[in-house]
Protein backbone atom coordinates (compact mmCIF):
# COMPACT_ATOMS: atom_id res chain seq x y z
CA UNK A 1 0.00 0.00 0.00
CA UNK A 2 2.69 2.43 1.09
CA UNK A 3 4.88 1.26 -1.72
CA UNK A 4 2.11 1.92 -4.23
CA UNK A 5 1.63 5.43 -2.90
CA UNK A 6 5.29 6.42 -3.16
CA UNK A 7 5.38 5.00 -6.62
CA UNK A 8 2.40 7.09 -7.63
CA UNK A 9 3.90 10.17 -5.99
CA UNK A 10 7.15 9.61 -7.81
CA UNK A 11 5.20 9.19 -10.97
CA UNK A 12 3.42 12.50 -10.41
CA UNK A 13 6.66 14.38 -9.74
CA UNK A 14 8.17 13.04 -12.92
CA UNK A 15 5.12 14.27 -14.86
CA UNK A 16 5.42 17.71 -13.22
CA UNK A 17 9.08 17.93 -14.22
CA UNK A 18 8.16 16.82 -17.72
CA UNK A 19 5.49 19.52 -18.08
CA UNK A 20 7.92 22.15 -16.77
CA UNK A 21 10.62 21.17 -19.26
CA UNK A 22 8.17 21.18 -22.17
CA UNK A 23 6.66 24.51 -21.08
CA UNK A 24 10.12 26.06 -20.83
CA UNK A 25 11.11 24.86 -24.30
CA UNK A 26 7.79 26.09 -25.72
CA UNK A 27 8.29 29.47 -24.09
CA UNK A 28 11.75 29.87 -25.61
CA UNK A 29 10.46 28.75 -28.99
CA UNK A 30 7.51 31.11 -29.01
CA UNK A 31 9.27 34.06 -27.37
CA UNK A 32 10.44 35.57 -30.69
CA UNK A 33 6.78 35.69 -31.76
CA UNK A 34 5.77 37.46 -28.54
CA UNK A 35 8.65 39.88 -29.09
CA UNK A 36 7.39 40.65 -32.57
CA UNK A 37 3.89 41.34 -31.24
CA UNK A 38 4.86 43.68 -28.42
CA UNK A 39 7.57 45.50 -30.34
CA UNK A 40 5.08 46.03 -33.14
CA UNK A 41 2.87 47.84 -30.61
CA UNK A 42 5.56 50.16 -29.22
CA UNK A 43 6.25 53.75 -30.08
CA UNK A 44 9.68 54.39 -31.55
CA UNK A 45 10.84 56.10 -28.33
CA UNK A 46 9.65 53.24 -26.14
CA UNK A 47 11.60 50.84 -28.31
CA UNK A 48 14.79 52.82 -27.89
CA UNK A 49 14.45 52.72 -24.08
CA UNK A 50 13.13 49.21 -23.39
CA UNK A 51 13.42 47.14 -26.54
CA UNK A 52 12.89 43.62 -25.17
CA UNK A 53 10.01 43.95 -22.69
CA UNK A 54 6.35 44.94 -23.23
CA UNK A 55 5.49 48.59 -22.60
CA UNK A 56 2.37 50.79 -22.59
CA UNK A 57 0.70 52.62 -24.31
CA UNK A 58 -0.05 50.40 -27.28
CA UNK A 59 0.73 52.08 -30.55
CA UNK A 60 -1.69 50.70 -33.14
CA UNK A 61 -0.80 53.28 -35.80
CA UNK A 62 2.34 51.22 -36.55
CA UNK A 63 0.07 48.69 -38.18
CA UNK A 64 -1.60 51.30 -40.33
CA UNK A 65 1.76 52.65 -41.49
CA UNK A 66 3.04 49.16 -42.22
CA UNK A 67 -0.12 48.09 -44.03
CA UNK A 68 0.30 50.86 -46.59
CA UNK A 69 3.37 49.02 -47.86
CA UNK A 70 2.73 45.41 -46.86
CA UNK A 71 -0.92 45.31 -48.01
CA UNK A 72 0.09 45.10 -51.66
CA UNK A 73 2.46 42.22 -51.00
CA UNK A 74 -0.28 40.37 -49.15
CA UNK A 75 -2.71 40.85 -52.01
CA UNK A 76 -0.14 39.53 -54.49
CA UNK A 77 0.60 36.54 -52.28
CA UNK A 78 -3.12 35.72 -52.08
CA UNK A 79 -3.48 35.76 -55.85
CA UNK A 80 -0.36 33.66 -56.45
CA UNK A 81 -1.15 31.33 -53.55
CA UNK A 82 -4.75 30.60 -54.51
CA UNK A 83 -3.98 30.06 -58.19
CA UNK A 84 -0.98 27.82 -57.45
CA UNK A 85 -2.71 25.72 -54.83
CA UNK A 86 -5.86 25.15 -56.88
CA UNK A 87 -3.76 24.32 -59.93
CA UNK A 88 -1.60 21.85 -58.05
CA UNK A 89 -4.48 20.16 -56.24
CA UNK A 90 -6.38 19.60 -59.49
CA UNK A 91 -3.38 18.48 -61.53
CA UNK A 92 -1.69 16.35 -58.89
CA UNK A 93 -4.77 14.61 -57.51
CA UNK A 94 -5.99 13.64 -60.99
CA UNK A 95 -2.55 12.41 -62.03
CA UNK A 96 -2.06 10.53 -58.77
CA UNK A 97 -5.46 8.90 -59.27
CA UNK A 98 -4.43 7.75 -62.74
CA UNK A 99 -1.16 6.32 -61.39
CA UNK A 100 -2.85 4.68 -58.45
CA UNK A 101 -6.07 3.24 -59.92
CA UNK A 102 -5.76 2.88 -63.68
CA UNK A 103 -3.81 0.18 -65.52
CA UNK A 104 -1.93 1.02 -68.72
CA UNK A 105 1.45 0.20 -70.27
CA UNK A 106 4.30 2.42 -69.07
CA UNK A 107 2.58 3.32 -65.82
CA UNK A 108 5.62 2.66 -63.62
CA UNK A 109 7.96 4.33 -66.11
CA UNK A 110 5.93 7.53 -66.28
CA UNK A 111 5.50 7.57 -62.51
CA UNK A 112 9.24 7.19 -62.11
CA UNK A 113 9.80 10.03 -64.60
CA UNK A 114 7.72 12.27 -62.33
CA UNK A 115 9.18 11.13 -59.01
CA UNK A 116 12.77 11.33 -60.28
CA UNK A 117 12.34 15.10 -60.38
CA UNK A 118 12.37 15.09 -56.58
CA UNK A 119 16.07 14.31 -56.85
CA UNK A 120 16.85 17.35 -59.02
CA UNK A 121 18.23 19.98 -56.63
CA UNK A 122 17.09 23.61 -56.78
CA UNK A 123 20.66 24.85 -57.35
CA UNK A 124 20.73 23.12 -60.70
CA UNK A 125 17.49 24.69 -61.91
CA UNK A 126 17.51 28.22 -60.46
CA UNK A 127 19.63 29.92 -63.11
CA UNK A 128 18.31 28.10 -66.22
CA UNK A 129 14.70 28.50 -65.00
CA UNK A 130 15.26 32.22 -64.68
CA UNK A 131 16.60 32.30 -68.24
CA UNK A 132 13.65 30.20 -69.48
CA UNK A 133 11.05 32.60 -68.12
CA UNK A 134 13.18 35.52 -69.25
CA UNK A 135 13.15 34.14 -72.82
CA UNK A 136 9.41 33.48 -72.60
CA UNK A 137 8.94 37.12 -71.64
CA UNK A 138 7.12 36.21 -68.43
CA UNK A 139 9.29 38.12 -65.95
CA UNK A 140 7.38 40.72 -63.94
CA UNK A 141 4.05 38.90 -64.19
CA UNK A 142 2.08 36.66 -61.85
CA UNK A 143 2.67 33.79 -64.29
CA UNK A 144 6.36 33.54 -63.47
CA UNK A 145 5.37 32.83 -59.89
CA UNK A 146 2.34 30.62 -60.54
CA UNK A 147 3.46 28.30 -63.38
CA UNK A 148 6.67 26.97 -61.80
CA UNK A 149 4.91 26.58 -58.49
CA UNK A 150 2.05 24.50 -59.91
CA UNK A 151 4.34 22.04 -61.66
CA UNK A 152 7.13 22.10 -59.09
CA UNK A 153 4.73 21.38 -56.22
CA UNK A 154 2.92 18.70 -58.21
CA UNK A 155 5.90 16.35 -58.07
CA UNK A 156 5.89 16.03 -54.28
CA UNK A 157 2.09 16.19 -54.16
CA UNK A 158 1.72 13.27 -56.58
CA UNK A 159 4.03 11.20 -54.39
CA UNK A 160 2.01 12.13 -51.31
CA UNK A 161 -1.40 11.57 -52.92
CA UNK A 162 -0.46 8.33 -54.62
CA UNK A 163 0.77 6.82 -51.37
CA UNK A 164 -2.55 7.81 -49.82
CA UNK A 165 -4.75 6.67 -52.73
CA UNK A 166 -2.97 3.30 -52.81
CA UNK A 167 -4.13 2.79 -49.24
CA UNK A 168 -7.82 3.23 -50.10
CA UNK A 169 -9.59 -0.16 -50.40
CA UNK A 170 -9.89 -1.26 -54.04
CA UNK A 171 -13.27 -2.89 -53.30
CA UNK A 172 -15.06 0.50 -53.19
CA UNK A 173 -13.80 1.38 -56.66
CA UNK A 174 -14.53 -2.14 -57.91
CA UNK A 175 -18.15 -1.87 -56.72
CA UNK A 176 -18.57 1.59 -58.26
CA UNK A 177 -17.21 0.39 -61.62
CA UNK A 178 -19.60 -2.56 -61.62
CA UNK A 179 -22.43 -0.09 -61.03
CA UNK A 180 -21.31 1.72 -64.18
CA UNK A 181 -19.16 4.49 -62.74
CA UNK A 182 -16.63 5.91 -65.22
CA UNK A 183 -13.05 6.48 -64.07
CA UNK A 184 -13.60 10.23 -63.88
CA UNK A 185 -16.72 9.71 -61.81
CA UNK A 186 -14.78 7.41 -59.44
CA UNK A 187 -12.14 10.12 -59.08
CA UNK A 188 -14.62 12.92 -58.40
CA UNK A 189 -17.20 11.12 -56.29
CA UNK A 190 -15.16 8.55 -54.37
CA UNK A 191 -11.48 9.36 -54.35
CA UNK A 192 -11.59 13.12 -53.72
CA UNK A 193 -14.16 13.11 -50.89
CA UNK A 194 -12.14 10.45 -49.07
CA UNK A 195 -8.95 12.48 -49.41
CA UNK A 196 -9.89 15.87 -47.97
CA UNK A 197 -7.34 15.68 -45.16
CA UNK A 198 -4.42 14.89 -47.44
CA UNK A 199 -5.47 17.58 -49.94
CA UNK A 200 -5.64 20.01 -47.01
CA UNK A 201 -2.16 19.03 -45.85
CA UNK A 202 -0.76 19.66 -49.31
CA UNK A 203 -2.58 23.00 -49.61
CA UNK A 204 -1.26 24.23 -46.28
CA UNK A 205 2.34 23.24 -46.82
CA UNK A 206 2.25 24.73 -50.31
CA UNK A 207 0.85 28.04 -49.06
CA UNK A 208 3.52 28.13 -46.37
CA UNK A 209 6.11 27.56 -49.10
CA UNK A 210 4.76 30.45 -51.19
CA UNK A 211 4.62 32.68 -48.13
CA UNK A 212 8.26 31.84 -47.35
CA UNK A 213 9.74 32.12 -50.82
CA UNK A 214 12.32 34.91 -50.96
CA UNK A 215 14.71 34.17 -53.79
CA UNK A 216 12.51 33.33 -56.79
CA UNK A 217 10.09 36.30 -56.56
CA UNK A 218 12.86 38.75 -55.78
CA UNK A 219 14.86 37.81 -58.89
CA UNK A 220 11.98 37.40 -61.34
CA UNK A 221 9.99 40.47 -60.26
CA UNK A 222 11.48 43.95 -60.31
CA UNK A 223 8.21 45.88 -59.96
CA UNK A 224 7.66 46.48 -56.20
CA UNK A 225 3.89 46.37 -56.70
CA UNK A 226 4.08 42.72 -57.74
CA UNK A 227 6.27 41.24 -55.03
CA UNK A 228 4.91 38.51 -52.79
CA UNK A 229 5.23 38.91 -49.06
CA UNK A 230 8.69 37.54 -48.22
CA UNK A 231 10.36 39.07 -51.25
CA UNK A 232 8.71 42.42 -50.55
CA UNK A 233 9.73 42.40 -46.90
CA UNK A 234 13.29 41.52 -47.84
CA UNK A 235 13.77 43.74 -50.89
CA UNK A 236 11.86 46.84 -49.83
CA UNK A 237 10.07 47.01 -46.50
CA UNK A 238 12.88 46.01 -44.09
CA UNK A 239 15.19 48.56 -45.68
CA UNK A 240 12.60 51.32 -45.96
CA UNK A 241 11.79 51.16 -42.22
CA UNK A 242 15.24 50.07 -41.02
CA UNK A 243 15.34 53.04 -38.64
CA UNK A 244 11.83 52.41 -37.27
CA UNK A 245 11.88 48.93 -35.79
CA UNK A 246 8.31 48.97 -34.34
CA UNK A 247 6.79 49.67 -37.77
CA UNK A 248 9.02 46.95 -39.20
CA UNK A 249 7.70 44.46 -36.66
CA UNK A 250 4.11 45.55 -37.20
CA UNK A 251 4.70 44.67 -40.84
CA UNK A 252 6.03 41.22 -39.87
CA UNK A 253 2.93 40.60 -37.77
CA UNK A 254 0.66 41.61 -40.63
CA UNK A 255 2.63 39.31 -42.92
CA UNK A 256 2.00 36.41 -40.53
CA UNK A 257 -1.71 37.02 -39.88
CA UNK A 258 -3.09 35.08 -42.87
CA UNK A 259 -1.00 32.07 -41.88
CA UNK A 260 -2.25 32.40 -38.31
CA UNK A 261 -5.85 32.31 -39.54
CA UNK A 262 -5.09 29.39 -41.80
CA UNK A 263 -3.54 27.59 -38.86
CA UNK A 264 -6.51 28.27 -36.58
CA UNK A 265 -8.98 26.84 -39.08
CA UNK A 266 -6.96 24.07 -40.63
CA UNK A 267 -4.49 22.78 -38.02
CA UNK A 268 -6.69 19.71 -37.46
CA UNK A 269 -6.42 18.68 -41.11
CA UNK A 270 -2.76 19.48 -41.18
CA UNK A 271 -1.91 17.53 -38.05
CA UNK A 272 -4.08 14.62 -39.16
CA UNK A 273 -2.46 14.55 -42.58
CA UNK A 274 1.06 14.76 -41.15
CA UNK A 275 0.48 12.06 -38.58
CA UNK A 276 -1.34 9.59 -40.82
CA UNK A 277 0.98 9.71 -43.84
CA UNK A 278 4.10 9.01 -41.76
CA UNK A 279 6.89 10.26 -44.00
CA UNK A 280 9.87 7.94 -43.91
CA UNK A 281 12.40 6.17 -46.09
Amino acid at each position, binding site marked *: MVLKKTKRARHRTSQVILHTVIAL*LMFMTLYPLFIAVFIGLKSHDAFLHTP*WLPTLPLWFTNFKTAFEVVGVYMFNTFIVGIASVLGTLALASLSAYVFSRMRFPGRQLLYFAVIALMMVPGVL*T*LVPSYMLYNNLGLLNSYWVLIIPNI*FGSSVGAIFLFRTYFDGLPESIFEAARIDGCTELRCYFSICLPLSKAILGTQAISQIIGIWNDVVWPSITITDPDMWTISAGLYRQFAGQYSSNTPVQFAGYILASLPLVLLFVFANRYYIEGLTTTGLKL
Partner: protein
Amino acid sequence: MSSKLKNDSLLRRIWKGRLAYLLLAPLMIGLLITSYYPPISGLYRSFFDWDVINEPVFVGMDNFVELFSDEVFLNSIPTMFQIAIPRLLISIFVPLIMAELIFAVKSKKMQYAYRVMVLLPIVAPGLVYTLLWQKIYDPQFGLLTTLLQGMNIVPEGTVINWLGNKDLVIFSLIFKGFPWVGGTAVLIYMSGLMNISTEVIESSVLDGCSTLRRIWHIDLPLLIGQIKYFLVFGLIGCIQDYNDQLILTNGGPGYTTYVPSYYMYIKAFTAGRMGYASAVGFVMFIAIFLLTIFIMRKKKGDD
Protein backbone atom coordinates in the same frame (compact mmCIF):
# COMPACT_ATOMS: atom_id res chain seq x y z
CA MET B 1 3.33 -15.85 -84.14
CA SER B 2 3.20 -15.55 -80.42
CA SER B 3 5.36 -12.40 -80.48
CA LYS B 4 2.94 -10.87 -82.96
CA LEU B 5 0.13 -11.69 -80.61
CA LYS B 6 2.04 -10.08 -77.80
CA ASN B 7 2.69 -6.96 -79.89
CA ASP B 8 -0.92 -6.83 -80.79
CA SER B 9 -2.00 -7.03 -77.24
CA LEU B 10 0.49 -4.34 -76.18
CA LEU B 11 -0.89 -1.98 -78.81
CA ARG B 12 -4.38 -2.89 -77.73
CA ARG B 13 -3.47 -2.29 -74.11
CA ILE B 14 -2.06 1.11 -75.02
CA TRP B 15 -5.25 1.90 -76.94
CA LYS B 16 -7.32 0.75 -73.97
CA GLY B 17 -5.27 3.03 -71.71
CA ARG B 18 -5.82 6.10 -73.91
CA LEU B 19 -7.91 7.84 -71.27
CA ALA B 20 -5.05 7.49 -68.77
CA TYR B 21 -2.54 9.01 -71.23
CA LEU B 22 -4.95 11.83 -72.02
CA LEU B 23 -5.40 12.61 -68.32
CA LEU B 24 -1.65 12.57 -67.73
CA ALA B 25 -0.84 14.72 -70.76
CA PRO B 26 -1.12 18.17 -69.09
CA LEU B 27 1.17 17.05 -66.28
CA MET B 28 3.78 15.47 -68.52
CA ILE B 29 3.89 18.35 -71.00
CA GLY B 30 4.12 20.89 -68.19
CA LEU B 31 6.89 18.97 -66.45
CA LEU B 32 8.85 18.63 -69.69
CA ILE B 33 8.89 22.40 -70.15
CA THR B 34 9.17 23.66 -66.59
CA SER B 35 11.06 20.87 -64.83
CA TYR B 36 13.01 18.80 -67.38
CA TYR B 37 14.14 21.48 -69.80
CA PRO B 38 15.80 23.90 -67.29
CA PRO B 39 18.21 21.45 -65.62
CA ILE B 40 19.22 19.99 -69.01
CA SER B 41 19.78 23.42 -70.51
CA GLY B 42 21.73 24.34 -67.36
CA LEU B 43 24.06 21.37 -67.80
CA TYR B 44 24.53 22.31 -71.45
CA ARG B 45 25.05 26.04 -70.87
CA SER B 46 27.65 25.46 -68.18
CA PHE B 47 30.08 25.09 -71.11
CA PHE B 48 29.14 28.54 -72.42
CA ASP B 49 29.80 32.16 -71.66
CA TRP B 50 26.15 33.01 -71.18
CA ASP B 51 24.51 36.22 -69.98
CA VAL B 52 21.09 37.82 -70.16
CA ILE B 53 21.75 40.01 -73.21
CA ASN B 54 24.31 38.48 -75.59
CA GLU B 55 24.29 35.25 -77.59
CA PRO B 56 25.92 32.39 -75.66
CA VAL B 57 29.53 31.60 -76.68
CA PHE B 58 30.98 28.11 -76.29
CA VAL B 59 34.02 28.16 -74.00
CA GLY B 60 34.62 24.46 -73.33
CA MET B 61 35.88 23.72 -69.82
CA ASP B 62 36.84 27.35 -69.06
CA ASN B 63 34.07 27.87 -66.50
CA PHE B 64 35.10 24.77 -64.56
CA VAL B 65 38.80 25.62 -64.70
CA GLU B 66 38.08 29.10 -63.36
CA LEU B 67 35.72 27.72 -60.71
CA PHE B 68 38.27 25.30 -59.29
CA SER B 69 40.97 27.93 -59.15
CA ASP B 70 38.77 30.51 -57.40
CA GLU B 71 39.65 30.52 -53.70
CA VAL B 72 36.35 32.06 -52.69
CA PHE B 73 34.58 29.01 -54.10
CA LEU B 74 37.10 26.50 -52.71
CA ASN B 75 36.89 28.02 -49.24
CA SER B 76 33.10 28.06 -49.37
CA ILE B 77 32.99 24.26 -49.38
CA PRO B 78 34.39 23.66 -45.85
CA THR B 79 32.27 26.60 -44.61
CA MET B 80 29.19 24.86 -45.95
CA PHE B 81 30.01 21.69 -43.99
CA GLN B 82 30.76 23.69 -40.85
CA ILE B 83 27.28 25.15 -40.98
CA ALA B 84 25.33 22.27 -42.53
CA ILE B 85 26.49 19.36 -40.36
CA PRO B 86 25.66 20.85 -36.93
CA ARG B 87 22.38 22.17 -38.33
CA LEU B 88 21.48 18.81 -39.77
CA LEU B 89 22.22 16.99 -36.51
CA ILE B 90 20.18 19.57 -34.60
CA SER B 91 17.27 19.32 -37.01
CA ILE B 92 17.21 15.53 -36.66
CA PHE B 93 17.76 14.98 -32.95
CA VAL B 94 16.26 17.98 -31.18
CA PRO B 95 12.74 17.37 -32.60
CA LEU B 96 13.17 13.70 -31.71
CA ILE B 97 13.86 14.61 -28.08
CA MET B 98 10.87 16.97 -28.10
CA ALA B 99 8.66 14.23 -29.57
CA GLU B 100 9.75 11.80 -26.83
CA LEU B 101 9.03 14.44 -24.17
CA ILE B 102 5.53 15.09 -25.50
CA PHE B 103 4.95 11.36 -25.97
CA ALA B 104 5.78 10.80 -22.30
CA VAL B 105 2.98 13.16 -21.21
CA LYS B 106 0.22 11.06 -19.64
CA SER B 107 -2.71 13.45 -20.08
CA LYS B 108 -4.05 13.00 -23.63
CA LYS B 109 -5.54 16.49 -23.57
CA MET B 110 -2.24 18.16 -22.73
CA GLN B 111 -0.48 15.98 -25.25
CA TYR B 112 -2.76 17.28 -28.00
CA ALA B 113 -2.31 20.86 -26.78
CA TYR B 114 1.48 20.49 -26.99
CA ARG B 115 1.21 19.00 -30.46
CA VAL B 116 -0.67 22.09 -31.62
CA MET B 117 1.71 24.47 -29.84
CA VAL B 118 4.78 22.86 -31.32
CA LEU B 119 3.43 23.65 -34.78
CA LEU B 120 2.78 27.31 -33.93
CA PRO B 121 6.15 28.66 -35.11
CA ILE B 122 5.22 27.82 -38.70
CA VAL B 123 2.61 30.60 -38.64
CA ALA B 124 5.34 33.20 -39.10
CA PRO B 125 7.18 33.16 -42.43
CA GLY B 126 10.76 31.89 -42.13
CA LEU B 127 11.97 35.26 -43.36
CA VAL B 128 10.25 36.97 -40.43
CA TYR B 129 12.17 34.69 -38.04
CA THR B 130 15.41 35.51 -39.79
CA LEU B 131 14.67 39.24 -39.54
CA LEU B 132 13.72 38.77 -35.87
CA TRP B 133 17.02 37.03 -35.22
CA GLN B 134 18.76 39.90 -36.92
CA LYS B 135 17.42 42.09 -34.09
CA ILE B 136 18.23 39.48 -31.47
CA TYR B 137 21.83 39.53 -32.77
CA ASP B 138 22.09 43.33 -32.76
CA PRO B 139 25.65 43.96 -31.43
CA GLN B 140 24.69 46.73 -29.00
CA PHE B 141 20.98 46.50 -28.16
CA GLY B 142 20.16 42.95 -29.23
CA LEU B 143 18.34 40.53 -26.94
CA LEU B 144 21.34 38.24 -26.68
CA THR B 145 23.80 40.98 -25.77
CA THR B 146 21.24 42.41 -23.30
CA LEU B 147 20.70 39.01 -21.69
CA LEU B 148 24.42 38.32 -21.29
CA GLN B 149 24.84 41.76 -19.71
CA GLY B 150 21.84 41.20 -17.42
CA MET B 151 23.29 37.91 -16.20
CA ASN B 152 26.66 39.60 -15.62
CA ILE B 153 28.41 37.21 -17.98
CA VAL B 154 29.82 40.17 -19.89
CA PRO B 155 30.33 43.68 -18.43
CA GLU B 156 27.76 46.42 -18.98
CA GLY B 157 28.14 48.23 -22.28
CA THR B 158 29.88 45.38 -24.10
CA VAL B 159 29.33 45.23 -27.83
CA ILE B 160 29.20 41.72 -29.27
CA ASN B 161 29.22 41.64 -33.02
CA TRP B 162 27.46 38.29 -33.42
CA LEU B 163 27.26 38.43 -37.20
CA GLY B 164 30.19 40.73 -37.94
CA ASN B 165 32.95 38.89 -36.07
CA LYS B 166 34.52 36.18 -38.19
CA ASP B 167 35.18 33.93 -35.19
CA LEU B 168 31.58 34.19 -33.98
CA VAL B 169 29.53 34.32 -37.16
CA ILE B 170 29.44 30.56 -37.91
CA PHE B 171 28.35 29.85 -34.33
CA SER B 172 25.68 32.55 -34.58
CA LEU B 173 24.27 31.06 -37.78
CA ILE B 174 24.04 27.62 -36.15
CA PHE B 175 22.61 28.97 -32.89
CA LYS B 176 19.91 30.90 -34.76
CA GLY B 177 16.50 29.40 -34.04
CA PHE B 178 17.44 28.08 -30.58
CA PRO B 179 15.94 25.88 -29.03
CA TRP B 180 14.98 24.52 -32.47
CA VAL B 181 12.03 22.44 -31.26
CA GLY B 182 9.14 23.87 -33.26
CA GLY B 183 7.86 22.56 -36.56
CA THR B 184 6.53 19.61 -38.43
CA ALA B 185 9.40 17.20 -37.65
CA VAL B 186 8.18 16.74 -34.08
CA LEU B 187 4.77 15.67 -35.35
CA ILE B 188 6.20 13.28 -37.88
CA TYR B 189 8.25 11.61 -35.13
CA MET B 190 5.20 11.53 -32.88
CA SER B 191 3.16 9.76 -35.51
CA GLY B 192 5.88 7.11 -35.59
CA LEU B 193 5.87 6.81 -31.81
CA MET B 194 2.09 6.49 -31.71
CA ASN B 195 2.32 3.55 -34.08
CA ILE B 196 4.20 1.57 -31.44
CA SER B 197 1.55 -0.60 -29.88
CA THR B 198 0.65 0.16 -26.28
CA GLU B 199 1.14 -3.52 -25.48
CA VAL B 200 4.80 -3.34 -26.36
CA ILE B 201 5.26 -0.28 -24.19
CA GLU B 202 3.28 -1.70 -21.28
CA SER B 203 5.15 -5.00 -21.33
CA SER B 204 8.45 -3.11 -21.44
CA VAL B 205 7.35 -1.27 -18.27
CA LEU B 206 6.31 -4.56 -16.62
CA ASP B 207 9.68 -6.07 -17.45
CA GLY B 208 11.26 -3.21 -15.52
CA CYS B 209 12.65 -1.53 -18.60
CA SER B 210 13.55 2.11 -17.95
CA THR B 211 12.26 4.79 -20.31
CA LEU B 212 15.74 5.50 -21.67
CA ARG B 213 16.29 1.83 -22.41
CA ARG B 214 12.91 1.63 -24.11
CA ILE B 215 13.77 4.65 -26.26
CA TRP B 216 17.11 3.11 -27.22
CA HIS B 217 15.90 -0.43 -27.90
CA ILE B 218 12.31 0.02 -29.09
CA ASP B 219 11.60 3.62 -30.21
CA LEU B 220 14.80 4.38 -32.10
CA PRO B 221 14.79 1.23 -34.27
CA LEU B 222 11.14 1.89 -35.15
CA LEU B 223 11.82 5.55 -35.99
CA ILE B 224 14.83 4.81 -38.16
CA GLY B 225 12.75 5.35 -41.32
CA GLN B 226 11.83 8.87 -40.26
CA ILE B 227 15.40 9.63 -39.18
CA LYS B 228 16.73 8.55 -42.58
CA TYR B 229 14.09 10.66 -44.32
CA PHE B 230 15.19 13.75 -42.40
CA LEU B 231 18.84 12.87 -42.95
CA VAL B 232 18.60 12.58 -46.73
CA PHE B 233 16.25 15.50 -47.41
CA GLY B 234 17.73 17.59 -44.61
CA LEU B 235 21.22 17.21 -46.04
CA ILE B 236 20.10 18.08 -49.56
CA GLY B 237 18.25 21.09 -48.13
CA CYS B 238 21.12 22.26 -45.90
CA ILE B 239 23.65 22.11 -48.75
CA GLN B 240 21.52 24.36 -50.91
CA ASP B 241 20.31 26.82 -48.29
CA TYR B 242 21.64 30.38 -48.42
CA ASN B 243 18.79 32.46 -47.02
CA ASP B 244 20.87 33.46 -43.99
CA GLN B 245 23.72 34.61 -46.21
CA LEU B 246 21.26 36.56 -48.32
CA ILE B 247 19.51 38.26 -45.43
CA LEU B 248 21.90 38.30 -42.46
CA THR B 249 25.52 38.25 -43.55
CA ASN B 250 25.84 38.86 -47.31
CA GLY B 251 28.45 36.12 -47.16
CA GLY B 252 30.54 38.21 -44.80
CA PRO B 253 32.40 39.36 -42.86
CA GLY B 254 34.78 39.16 -45.81
CA TYR B 255 34.01 35.82 -47.43
CA THR B 256 33.73 33.84 -44.16
CA THR B 257 30.12 32.70 -44.59
CA TYR B 258 30.17 32.14 -48.36
CA VAL B 259 28.69 28.75 -49.24
CA PRO B 260 28.67 27.34 -52.81
CA SER B 261 24.97 28.04 -53.39
CA TYR B 262 25.33 31.66 -52.32
CA TYR B 263 28.39 31.95 -54.54
CA MET B 264 26.26 30.71 -57.42
CA TYR B 265 23.50 33.20 -56.63
CA ILE B 266 25.95 36.12 -56.56
CA LYS B 267 27.63 35.08 -59.81
CA ALA B 268 24.26 34.76 -61.55
CA PHE B 269 22.23 37.67 -60.25
CA THR B 270 24.84 40.22 -59.23
CA ALA B 271 27.56 39.54 -61.80
CA GLY B 272 25.13 38.34 -64.49
CA ARG B 273 27.34 35.36 -65.42
CA MET B 274 24.65 32.74 -66.11
CA GLY B 275 26.96 30.19 -67.78
CA TYR B 276 29.49 30.33 -64.96
CA ALA B 277 26.70 30.07 -62.36
CA SER B 278 25.29 27.07 -64.26
CA ALA B 279 28.70 25.43 -63.92
CA VAL B 280 28.52 25.94 -60.14
CA GLY B 281 25.05 24.39 -60.20
CA PHE B 282 26.39 21.45 -62.25
CA VAL B 283 29.20 20.77 -59.76
CA MET B 284 26.82 21.01 -56.80
CA PHE B 285 24.36 18.69 -58.50
CA ILE B 286 27.05 16.04 -58.97
CA ALA B 287 28.16 16.43 -55.35
CA ILE B 288 24.61 16.13 -54.02
CA PHE B 289 23.92 13.17 -56.29
CA LEU B 290 27.02 11.28 -55.13
CA LEU B 291 26.28 12.09 -51.50
CA THR B 292 22.70 10.83 -51.82
CA ILE B 293 23.85 7.58 -53.43
CA PHE B 294 26.48 7.17 -50.70
CA ILE B 295 23.86 7.56 -47.95
CA MET B 296 21.37 5.26 -49.69
CA ARG B 297 24.07 2.59 -50.18
CA LYS B 298 25.14 2.84 -46.58
CA LYS B 299 21.53 2.55 -45.56
CA LYS B 300 21.16 -0.67 -47.52
CA GLY B 301 24.35 -2.00 -45.97
CA ASP B 302 22.93 -1.31 -42.51
CA ASP B 303 19.76 -3.20 -43.28
